[in-house]
């Protein structure tokens, strides 16, 4: 029994390194996607202190809007632009309708309001585009399909071109965002707001405007994530459960750290794929659904502030 848990999986890894690489790669790719959702969370949390539970749904919503518009006969690129427009309207609406009236409420109330937002988005999305799963318009967006097979380590490892594209686009977006935060006027304002709402207000930064911008940025991230994700599986609100996986990622990385979100995403992605592949069969499989949370929980016990969070000094 102990042998099966502690030693056998590693023997298997050593015995067929090609399978190991394949699993690792799969894990890394799903890790990138988790990281992208987590990135949306981090953006909003940094700038407004709101724990946006709806980020996962925004991903599905954006993907669904894009596909839905295309189905209604809108050309792909125009559909992308229109979806961006929808995300912009959403950002403004969220700021006006949800954030502004709740501005001085405790964090937990805002957190719960994003639950409400989640259901509103599900409702609207399903109402307009129907509840059935849809295919992502991969080819129309000039995303590569097919795969590259590499013979290595005594076996054949398959890399989906799409996954490679996803990794590249994600990296580009992360670099872009960091540059944006570091070097633009709005980026500076965002960092100021993240530090202290009141202080930012007192030097003339408009909170409302900043929040709308941040939610829009999170919307763009959501759209890109939605495209990538939809291309790998399909677009439907059934994905929202998977979107929740971004939460353990956040725990690992800390709520305010962009690098944390990425590294956390990769750890969770790889961790759960490995666990499923090598340890899953011992208990009948399906552990992918919860192993991420257990990893995060175990980690929390050891380091409650997350991988990159600051040590918390409690004051009174």
């Amino acid at each position, binding site marked *: 029994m102990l042998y099966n848990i502690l030693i056998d999986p590693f023997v298997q890894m050593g015995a067929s390194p090609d399978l190991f690489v394949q699993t690792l790669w799969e894990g890394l790719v799903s890790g990138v996607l988790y990281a992208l959702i987590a990135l949306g969370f981090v953006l909003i949390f940094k700038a407004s202190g709101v724990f946006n539970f709806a980020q996962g749904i925004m991903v599905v919503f954006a993907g669904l809007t894009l596909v839905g518009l295309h189905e209604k006969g809108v050309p792909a690129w125009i559909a992308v632009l229109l979806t961006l427009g929808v995300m912009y309207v959403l950002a403004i609406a969220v700021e006006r309708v949800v954030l502004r009236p709740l501005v001085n409420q405790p964090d937990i109330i805002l957190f*719960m309001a994003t639950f409400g937002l989640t259901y509103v988005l599900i*409702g609207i999305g399903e109402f307009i585009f129907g509840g059935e799963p849809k295919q992502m318009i991969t080819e129309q967006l000039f995303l590569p399909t097919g795969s590259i097979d590499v013979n290595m380590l005594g076996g054949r490892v398959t890399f989906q071109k799409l996954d490679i594209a996803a990794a590249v686009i994600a990296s580009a977006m992360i670099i872009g965002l960091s540059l944006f935060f570091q070097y633009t006027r709005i980026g500076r304002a965002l960092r100021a707001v993240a530090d202290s709402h009141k202080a930012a207000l007192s030097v003339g930064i408009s909170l409302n405007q900043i929040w709308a911008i941040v939610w829009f940025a999170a919307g763009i991230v959501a759209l890109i994530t939605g495209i990538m994700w939809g291309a790998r599986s399909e677009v439907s609100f059934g994905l929202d459960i998977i979107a929740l996986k971004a939460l353990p990622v956040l*725990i690992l990385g800390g709520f305010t750290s962009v690098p944390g979100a990425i590294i956390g995403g990769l750890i969770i992605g790889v961790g759960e794929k490995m666990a499923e592949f090598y340890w899953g069969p011992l208990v009948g499989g399906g552990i992918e659904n919860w192993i991420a949370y257990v990893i995060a*929980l175990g980690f*929390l016990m050891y380091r409650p502030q997350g991988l990159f969070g600051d040590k918390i000094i409690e004051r009174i």
Partner: protein
Amino acid sequence: MFYREAGQFKKTYAADMAVFPILQDRIGLGIILFIAAVVIPLTGSTFFISSVMIPFLVFSLAAMGLNIVTGYTGLISLGSAAFMGVGAFACFKLTTSFPNVNILVWILASGFFSAVIGALFAIPSLRIKGFYLAVATLAAQFFLEWCFVRIPWLYNYSASGAIQVPQRTLFGHIITGANATPTTRYLVLLAIVVFMTWIASNILHGRVGRTFMAVRDMDIAAELMGIRLLPAKLTAFALSSFYCGVAGAVMVTLWYTGGEASDLFNIRQSFYILFMVIIGGLGSLLGCFLGSALLNIVPLVLKYGLPSIGIAIASETAEHINHLLVGALIIFILIVEPHGMARLWQITKQKLRTWPFPY
């Protein structure tokens, strides 16, 4: 004008500490109990009792469980449906293994199983707080959900993975299984819910309840007052899970008489219960009932109410609109009154007190 407390003097601390110190409230409660226990069983249709009242009561109980930990102790739990599931499976296993023991005993006993599991998952709550804890409870949700599917022993190796409580009787009346009448099941359920509400109110109005609220409002100060945080939080989680567990047990015994799959206890159900608590009122027992009533009635109105007044609506669309409405309702309630419908009711009572001369 009718809702006045003038002239009702309290001569002892016991009278002042009563849950309903005002006479009119006690009369009102009596009337509600009378309607629930006598009028509804006599006049309600089968549909009304089995599709409105029974779900309402089951979810009120579950919401009460969640409210204890989230509303009173301030710890968000996203795993309440899983704890319901623990209660449901425990009750099923117990009654099929020991068929001769009264089912009511097993319903309450399954709460204890749930309480132990709940406390177990609450151990991290000492070190982690707030959103982090919410995510930790998701671990409980998904792990337990997985257990419900993957451990065939739990559902006695039945092919469909469903659990079906066999026929059990109480004082010669059939109360579970396919042959029990909705009215009997409703009355048993009502008795359980009233009893459990009374217990909850007792606990929450005393030292234990104050401890919970102190932890919620300012945990550091609570600790400096001599409250040990881990036992307080564990008690809250255990008590909460106890209520959820009993709710799960009554769900499979008194509501779903046919076998239902284990996705009764999925994450969406957890969210749904959380919504009831938010809409009804965090930290209010009355709120549990109000929230449960509202969230049970909205889908029914969309599904059956609208067609009956001539607006045709596909049942799928109704579900979509339901999502939309529930979401909008949560945001609306949080903006208008973060303490939910229960607080709105309190404000109304305050106004009634001075009506018709508010100044």
